């Protein structure tokens, strides 16, 4: 399969690339940076991990940047994983409109435009493709400081459910993976005390495994999940 993955450079996105490569697929990754760990994967799987540096905060040009000369119509796309995101962390009374818009560009607008062109690619090739968005447990369990971020992920969950309904008759599926807190760069600024509190709210009392999230994404992309669409799959250690 050919899979487009955003935010491939580190954390969950990098792990998704790794799992897909292990399974024999070809990955088209986009992010702004290309760190050594990503380059190592490219060396390990020659020709199967393509990369383009794209800034997803520019939703106006995301079409030409991603689909113009990278994932062109010559590539038959089987799956799209919308993983890239940033967290604007602050309390509601401090909302800064520019930062809010900047986050929505990356977390919501570019992903929606990319879904548009991923579906168009699937239409051209008559592919029963699979779309997977990465949400966050903060949509379902409130956390102080995450109202704006959670709202962007809530938008994706609604978008996915409706995409599933709209395109199901053509065999195109859309699902969401809802991870709990993971020890990645995104959550690096949390103190140990904050982490302990977050983990205490889970059944398994620990951080969510990045690998488990990536494996779930790969599963939803695969034929094994052929009858799963319009779902939010929680991979969150049983957050309560």
């Amino acid at each position, binding site marked *: 399969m050919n899979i487009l993955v955003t935010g491939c450079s580190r954390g969950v996105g990098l792990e998704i690339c790794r799992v897909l490569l292990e399974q024999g697929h070809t990955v088209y990754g986009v992010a702004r940076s290309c760190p050594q760990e990503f380059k190592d994967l490219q060396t390990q799987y020659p020709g199967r991990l393509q990369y383009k540096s794209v800034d997803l905060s520019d939703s106006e040009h995301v079409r030409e940047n991603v689909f113009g000369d990278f994932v062109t*119509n010559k590539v038959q796309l089987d799956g799209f994983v919308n993983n890239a995101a940033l967290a604007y962390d602050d309390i509601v009374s401090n909302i800064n409109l520019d930062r809010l818009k900047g986050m929505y560009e990356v977390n919501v607008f570019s992903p929606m435009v990319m879904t548009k062109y991923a579906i168009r690619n699937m239409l051209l090739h008559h592919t029963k493709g699979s779309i997977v968005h990465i949400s966050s447990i903060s949509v379902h369990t409130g956390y102080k400081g995450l109202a704006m971020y959670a709202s962007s992920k809530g938008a994706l969950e609604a978008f996915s459910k409706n995409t599933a309904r709209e395109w199901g008759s053509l065999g195109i599926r859309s699902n969401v993976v809802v991870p709990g807190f993971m020890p990645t760069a995104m959550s690096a600024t949390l103190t140990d005390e904050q982490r302990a509190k977050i983990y205490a709210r889970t059944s398994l009392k620990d951080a969510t495994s990045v690998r488990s999230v990536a494996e779930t994404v790969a599963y939803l992309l695969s034929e094994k999940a052929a009858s799963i669409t319009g779902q939010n799959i929680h991979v969150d250690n049983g957050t309560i």
Partner: protein
Amino acid sequence: MKEKVLEVINMIRVAKNLPLVESVTDNTRLREDLDLTSFDMAELTVRIEDEYGIDIFETGLVNTIGEIYAKLQK
């Protein structure tokens, strides 16, 4: 260009088990006369864009064959 548009329309109609159309005019309506649904028109757009690099739906809905020709001639 006109032959290509007809070819794409017939490609979509064949996939839906509809008979081929011999010819279309500027006034032929996509929905009513050719039985194309919004999904068929999405595929039509994608195939025409793949050929000519023009997204016929970008600037609003298209209802007739003539409107497609007009967008492609711009």
